[in-house]
């Protein structure tokens, strides 16, 4: 059993509000490259597992976890071990 089993699967765009609690800008139009398969996709198009604890974004190609943003009583955690890099559109 994984932490995704009870989560609602939506599109990354739906995580925009929760992600704005961590990032200063809207990152749904930014692209993340998956460290596992090398595939690249816009954050808004990733698979979003809306878990009770926070946001889990998975690669649409290989389902590897790219980003976890969790809210705890001890603060907000951001983990992006599965992402090789993220490219934000130019201002």
């Amino acid at each position, binding site marked *: 059993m994984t932490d995704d089993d009870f989560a609602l699967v939506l599109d990354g765009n*739906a995580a925009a*509000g929760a992600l*704005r609690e961590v990032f200063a*800008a809207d990152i*749904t139009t930014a692209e993340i490259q998956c460290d596992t398969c090398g595939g690249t996709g816009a954050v*808004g*198009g990733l698979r979003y597992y809306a878990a009770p604890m926070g946001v889990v974004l998975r690669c649409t190609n290989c389902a590897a976890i790219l980003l976890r943003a969790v809210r705890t009583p001890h603060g907000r955690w951001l983990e992006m071990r599965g992402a090789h890099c993220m490219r934000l559109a130019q201002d």
Partner: protein
Amino acid sequence: MTAIEPQAIQDRRLGWRRAKVRQVIVETSRVKSLLLDVAGWPGHLPGQHVDVRLTDKDGYQAQRSYSIASPAEESWVALTVERVENGEVSPYLVDEIRMDDQFELRGPIGGYFVWTAAMGGPLCLIAAGSGIAPLMAMLRHRDRQSAGVPSVLLYSARSIEDAIYGKELAAMARRDPDLRVVGALTRQQPEGWTGYRRRVDKSMLADACFPAARTPRIYVCGPTPFVEDVSSFLEELGHNASMIKTERFGPSGGPA
């Protein structure tokens, strides 16, 4: 014509704002549109959503996302909300709320599922049920801009009574030769109905949408199974996945 500056909108801080109901529109037996005045609203792009937060007297909070249905050209914000039985937020928004009532929201949120006339077309919009809401913001914006972008809306609903914005869509299509509105009524059809009488399938998409060779921008919004079926049919028809943007509902009935 109002200029839209995406970056300026995105970079503002996302705080909770007070929304006040200026009008309630009954759309169907299960759906209402709330027209809101939002304090300090910075403007939005067609397709964006808001998070709505309700707080009860004990301090318990419930939060849901709703698409904005109003065009970017208006200073007020319209949310079209479908009642989800046993929901925490939608029954209040649909059944309880009255003019001048207030609640909190934050937004606009999400720059990914967005279309503006400047992005061009052809534009292919595919919705089921209340999934029409963010696509309606795009159509209303397109209508105000009179940009003549070739567009098609394929809209699936259970019956004509369940179809939202029916009259407005028909009027829009009548006055605009570049817009085609195609309906699919899945359970019940009125007498003389000339549209589709089944769920959206691959052959319907092949007939109603632009061919892949014209590289249309495609936006799909509705319940999760609908969105997943439609996107795989579109890919089978040769549309590039990068041109297909999707917005799935959760069981909360809200999109985002």
